[in-house]
């Protein structure tokens, strides 16, 4: 299809034609178009349906304030809903689809809602779906969910990736229009390290769409020259397609750069920039607002400035016969520019008296002028057909250019709860200069200065102020000569005589009637009216609508705008996709994966892995003939108990503690005594939190004089190290002790089972005697293996078997596991994973993460005697509090189902037989469960009230979620080898 509405001129490149598809039809546009301008060039104005009433909607703006023209960008089976067609830079192959309509854009079923409009007024949901209560989940919510929402999410994963970057500068200029470019020129010529960001893909702001001169050049030519000069400066960074959306502490600004609008783009699609700067000039310009009048949402109604943009910048004829409806001079500029391009302007309707607009009227002599008049009604459905005026005239037009004044873009000045000030002269809110974010200056239209020459002057002043604060002399530049038309207009919100609905917020379908009704119903605060009517709560955040809403509230309540106030501004300034915020941290890259030293070996052994914090640990090693993981785990347990097994325990936290006060320091952080630990011996240790609850457990090995290695649980390694550093630096800095984490520097394997010593003797060098008498249970030593490789040997047992933990510097870990595996063949060595490890520790009744749950004391775990009262240690005093030594506390016990084949589950709660399952009868809960091949039964650990007294008795394990109610026997937590003979053999 030809671009039937394309006219001469404009900032598009006719040498680069681009093809695109909208709603299945093929069209063409040019490089430099947005999707919206290309659609308009092809005569398409109807692009979407509204949120609530499904009214037909057209393109309304030419920038990110667009409330109507949202589309879905499509690429094969993925899509991005709610894309603003006014900001999408046209690219070849772009495919878009209108949203919120079915079966088609022109005939939409849900537009029936429009007929029920009297029922769908403000607070509709609150009023209608009140009762019956049971209807909420079954009827109302599914109904609302189906009807609500803009666009539709893609069913597939986002194929694009996003990134994050950091930038630093002396001066950040936000906005690349007249003010931003001028400030950039001043700063750039003085050599300041400057970043200039602009949301659009072209710099220039309003100058791209206006028809005026700067320094004798057409204003867009002045822009092009200025950009060229700035581009040549190495210390100035121009960032187009980038919008600052948040102001944070310490002059940190977050911006989003749209590198490509294309879905599945090459390289990152969007980037979040964290910009750290010393000074900020906010040159964000102003956004035009509309006027509320009857059926003012019909396709063909457009902001006056947007119509200038489409005419001048994009060379598009948006209509054939236009009416201008304005409260200020902006509408007159549109009429003039349309006229120049040969587009018929049928009428200028100005709400002002003749003498109030006579200045600008001199320039538009040809056009019929209706002073002190208003549009009360728009005729037409899918397109404007005619208008009726207050004075009774009916004029046939196919488009209306509307201007109700301008809103300075003050969003970024108010994100820290600052309140803007109403300025009656410009009919707009401006920032309170006394409350600006630290280091920020506002320049140009963003503070209500509209005449181009004054904007340039102001931008130069602000840039000079920055220069002087940085110790530079002011610039010697001259201010370019430019248009000096000051703003002339009158505050005007809505046509009161209108009988039809008059829209304030197009995107959320909020009309003047809704706002007046809300006030009538007693919603006096603008925050309340906003939430009750949803005014300004759509994705456009009310950029065109919210000030009009405030004006109508003020009018209705007979209050001033100041008294009415604004709602609170919050980041982000424009919608930012969650995907962009998470940046590269998604999927597998959400956090780093920590692989154990034996990972490559475990992969070869076909291990199944389990995530344990950031670690990936071997869970079990299935054999080909095993059909269920339980079979593999049982085999691993039996092989270890009867023979010998090996597992990687490198993930346990390892902290090296050295210094003349090392032992005394450990006495402070462990509740049991460490100073009495002999050299070459290990001891089990418990750390308490200061409130007396168990923090972590592990072993302390006295390796050499003033040298200890302590271990922590895998889960708590980071916290324990942090805590120990806190104790060392903040509580006892006078102690001579140094700490370092060696978790990753040393690989450690547990070799467990009756044959473990025989196996080890084949690995360690001959001069080390590890016979039971010379190297008994809880011994440790620095040794060498495999002809001189440095190693550490600890005789520790988590499994309850005779067992050793062998540590080597991590670089030997892979070679060592393979070597042991090779040697182990003669011993039938079996690698085992975390499941078998868990089974064996439950059989032994060792408390682990499930029991060290932040609620248990040492006493609860049956370890109360370990808390030494002879010394001060963290938590020792508060562990004696009444509530922590209450005999009715939950105590660790073992539980077994009376029928050994019945499967109990962890999380089950414990009740006495025949007692009702109520919270007051609750006796406790099961923390860990495993199938024990040694007991031929499921076994579990449980925390039971006054548990020791229940041992030998029968209770019930109830899991209402799984419909389980199982008779259990309470036992000692030590199911296997309770005297601990096997580990001392």
């Amino acid at each position, binding site marked *: 299809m030809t671009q039937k509405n394309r006219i001469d001129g404009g900032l598009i490149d006719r040498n680069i034609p681009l093809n695109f598809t909208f709603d299945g039809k093929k069209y063409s546009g040019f490089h430099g178009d947005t999707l919206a301008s290309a659609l308009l060039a092809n005569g398409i104005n109807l692009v979407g349906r509204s949120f609530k009433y499904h009214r037909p909607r057209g393109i309304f703006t030419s920038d990110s304030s667009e409330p109507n023209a949202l589309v879905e960008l499509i690429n094969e089976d993925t899509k991005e809903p709610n894309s603003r067609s006014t900001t999408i830079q046209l690219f070849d192959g772009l495919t878009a689809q209108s949203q919120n309509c079915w079966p088609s854009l022109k005939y939409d079923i849900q537009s029936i809602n429009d007929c029920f409009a009297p029922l769908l007024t403000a607070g509709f949901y609150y009023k209608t779906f009140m009762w019956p209560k049971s209807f909420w989940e079954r009827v109302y919510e599914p109904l609302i969910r189906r009807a609500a929402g803009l666009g539709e999410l893609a069913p597939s994963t986002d194929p694009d990736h996003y990134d994050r970057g950091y930038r630093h500068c002396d001066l950040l200029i936000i906005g690349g229009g007249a003010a931003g470019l001028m400030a950039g020129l001043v700063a750039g010529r003085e050599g300041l390290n400057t970043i200039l960001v602009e949301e659009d893909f072209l710099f220039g702001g309003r100058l791209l769409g206006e028809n005026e001169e700067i320094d004798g050049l057409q204003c867009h030519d002045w822009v092009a020259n200025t950009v060229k000069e700035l581009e040549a400066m190495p210390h100035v960074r121009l960032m187009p397609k980038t919008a600052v959306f948040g102001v944070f502490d*310490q002059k940190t600004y977050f911006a989003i750069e749209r590198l490509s609008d294309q879905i599945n783009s090459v390289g990152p699609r969007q980037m979040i920039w964290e910009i750290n700067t010393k000074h900020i000039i906010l040159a964000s310009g102003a956004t035009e607002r509309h006027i509320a009048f009857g059926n003012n949402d019909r396709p063909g109604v457009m902001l006056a400035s947007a119509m200038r943009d489409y005419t001048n910048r994009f060379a598009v004829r948006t209509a054939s016969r236009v009416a201008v409806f304005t409260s200020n001079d902006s509408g007159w500029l549109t009429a003039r520019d349309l006229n120049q391009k040969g587009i018929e302007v049928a009428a200028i309707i100005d709400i002002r008296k003749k003498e109030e607009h006579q200045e600008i009227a001199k320039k538009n002599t040809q056009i019929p002028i209706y002073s002190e008049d208003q549009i009360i009604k728009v005729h037409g459905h899918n397109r404007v057909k005619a208008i009726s005026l207050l004075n009774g005239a009916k004029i046939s037009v196919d488009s209306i250019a509307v201007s109700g004044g301008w809103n300075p873009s003050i969003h970024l000045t108010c994100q820290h709860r600052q309140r803007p000030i109403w300025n009656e002269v410009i009919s707009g809110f401006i920032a309170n200069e006394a409350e600006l974010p630290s280091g920020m200056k506002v320049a140009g239209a963003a503070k209500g200065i509209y005449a181009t020459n004054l904007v340039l002057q102001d931008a130069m002043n602000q840039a000079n102020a920055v220069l002087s604060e940085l110790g530079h002399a002011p610039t010697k530049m001259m201010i370019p000569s430019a248009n000096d038309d000051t703003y002339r207009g009158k505050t005007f919100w809505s046509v009161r005589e209108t009988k039809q609905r008059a829209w304030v917020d197009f995107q959320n379908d909020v009309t003047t009637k809704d706002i007046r009704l809300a006030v009538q119903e007693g919603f006096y605060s603008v925050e309340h009216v906003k939430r009750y009517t949803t005014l300004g709560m759509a994705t456009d955040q009310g950029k065109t609508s919210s000030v009009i809403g405030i004006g109508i509230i003020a009018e209705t309540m007979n209050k001033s705008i100041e008294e009415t106030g604004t709602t609170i501004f919050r980041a982000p300034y424009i919608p930012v996709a969650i995907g962009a915020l998470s940046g590269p941290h998604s999927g597998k890259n959400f956090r780093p994966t920590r692989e154990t030293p034996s990972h490559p070996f475990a992969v070869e052994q076909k291990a199944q892995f389990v995530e344990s914090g950031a670690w990936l640990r071997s869970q079990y090693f299935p054999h080909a003939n095993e059909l269920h993981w339980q079979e593999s785990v049982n085999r691993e347990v039996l092989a270890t108990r009867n023979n010998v097994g090996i597992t990687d325990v490198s993930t346990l936290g390892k902290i090296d503690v050295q210094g003349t006060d090392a032992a005394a320091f450990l006495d402070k952080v462990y509740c049991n005594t460490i100073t009495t630990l002999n050299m070459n011996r290990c001891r089990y240790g418990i750390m308490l939190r200061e409130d007396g609850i168990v923090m972590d457990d592990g072993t302390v090995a006295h390796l050499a004089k003033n040298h200890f290695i302590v271990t922590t649980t895998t889960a708590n390694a980071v916290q324990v190290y*942090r805590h120990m*550093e*806190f104790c060392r*630096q*903040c509580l006892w*800095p*006078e102690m001579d002790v140094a700490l370092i984490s060696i978790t990753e520097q040393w690989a450690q394997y547990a070799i467990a089972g009756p044959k473990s010593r025989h196996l080890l003797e084949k690995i360690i060098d001959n001069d080390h005697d590890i016979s039971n008498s010379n190297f008994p249970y809880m011994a440790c030593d620095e040794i060498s293996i495999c002809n001189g490789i440095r190693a550490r040997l600890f005789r520790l047992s988590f499994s309850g078997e005779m067992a050793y933990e062998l540590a080597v510097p991590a670089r030997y870990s892979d070679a060592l596991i393979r070597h042991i595996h090779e040697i182990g063949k003669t011993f039938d060595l079996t690698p085992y994973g975390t499941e078998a490890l868990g089974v064996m520790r439950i059989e032994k009744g060792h408390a682990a993460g499930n029991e060290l749950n932040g609620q248990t004391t040492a006493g609860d775990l049956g370890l109360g005697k370990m808390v030494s009262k002879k010394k001060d240690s963290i938590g020792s005093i508060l562990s004696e509090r009444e509530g922590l030594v209450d005999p009715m506390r939950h105590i660790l016990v073992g539980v077994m189902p009376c029928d050994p084949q019945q499967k109990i589950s962890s999380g089950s709660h414990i009740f006495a037989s025949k007692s009702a399952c109520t919270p007051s009868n609750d006796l406790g809960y099961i923390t860990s469960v495993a199938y024990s091949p040694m007991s031929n039964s499921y076994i579990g650990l449980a925390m039971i009230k006054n548990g020791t007294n229940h041992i030998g008795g029968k209770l019930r394990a109830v899991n209402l979620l799984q419909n389980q109610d199982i008779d259990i026997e309470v036992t000692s937590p030590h199911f296997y080898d309770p005297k601990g003979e096997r580990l001392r053999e």
Partner: protein
Amino acid sequence: MKINHPLLGPRNASEFTILGDAKLLQRPNTPERDQARVFYEYLYLRDNPIGQHQELWFHEQGDRSWLIVSRDTLTHEINNVELASKVIKKGQTQ
């Protein structure tokens, strides 16, 4: 947010973890009497001031030093950052 580390200069706050009120530095020397009350006050009673506040931050992704950060709870401005161990040692010699 950045924290001006006394040894390493300004570092991104994401490298740190916060513990809270620097009052935790004043752990009581176990007194003979009323131990439980003294420790209870130490551990649980905190001021919640508007304005200046001393906080403990740990440079976990850095040099692992504990810092005392003076921060304005109203403006989030950080006025002073010191090594905790240095402050305590200074206090002990005085």
